[in-house]
């Protein structure tokens, strides 16, 4: 699998993920909970989930930037 087709897969999954967000933006029945209520529920356990998501998303972005750097190198471009 080449890097460009890999990035297509990643883009596909990111877009699919973005579409999932629209599910959450639908108005909730009855109790009309806000997002903050979700994070305050379950003893604020979802705050940990959120922190881990931010952390790993950041690491993935950083890894992809390094990946792009290697790609440039493989194509033989000089300089930064």
């Amino acid at each position, binding site marked *: 699998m080449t890097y460009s087709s890999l990035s297509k897969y990643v883009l596909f999954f990111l877009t699919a993920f973005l579409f999932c967000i629209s599910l959450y933006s639908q108005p909730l029945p009855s109790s009309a909970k806000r997002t*903050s209520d979700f*994070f*305050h529920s*379950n*003893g*604020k*356990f979802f*705050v*940990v989930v*959120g*922190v*881990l998501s*931010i*952390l790993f998303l*950041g*690491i993935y972005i*950083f*890894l992809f930037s*390094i990946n792009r*750097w*290697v790609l440039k*190198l493989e194509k033989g471009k*000089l*300089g*930064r």
Partner: protein
Amino acid sequence: MLRQNWWKGLCIVLLTSTVITGLLIPVPARPNLNESIRNYFFHPPLWIVMMVQFTVSVVYSIKYLRSSSLRHDLVAREFAITGLFFGLLGICTGMFWANFTWGAFWTGDPKLTGTAIGLLIYSAYLVLRGSLTDIDKRARMAAVYNIFAYAMLFPTIFIIPRMVESLHPGGTGNPVISPKDVDPRMFLIFWTLAAPGWILLGLWITSLRIRIAKIYLNDIQ
């Protein structure tokens, strides 16, 4: 040693067990924090990684000033970049956590102000590098600046925040380093699994960046 695989495997084992135990172990019930106390295994290690990276970076800056070898300059730069990245991650995760425990993404807490200043100083290190075109002059000025930047970290993130009241736990002490401020089991997991795991991940990323940067350097020379 850096090209060997055992420590990368160790990094994966440590981080995986950090995430699993961090999410599963029973934690002490604290008001306001509740379950979000588990972030102790994920947010504070980022700052430890940042300090490790900046420390190695300044060591290589000093090495550069003694040797004038561009390879030392390159290592210093890559460690500073990764350190800055982990600092930014620390700020982002901290802001998210703060929003649900302190009620706002950003507060006037001295530790937040201090780290923001510290990260800005290190961003200026990269700006300084980008603004100079002569390779040797850039390396020399960046190395000198890096030493000052590292020295500034101590008042901004270690001394001043501990002289005043802070929203962070531990008050004037440091809950990460002092065992009496934190649950002993969490303290043990922090120092045996979380901190070494995240430090190794930082080293892994930086070692990859250094290897790429060295190929670039060989192409230029």
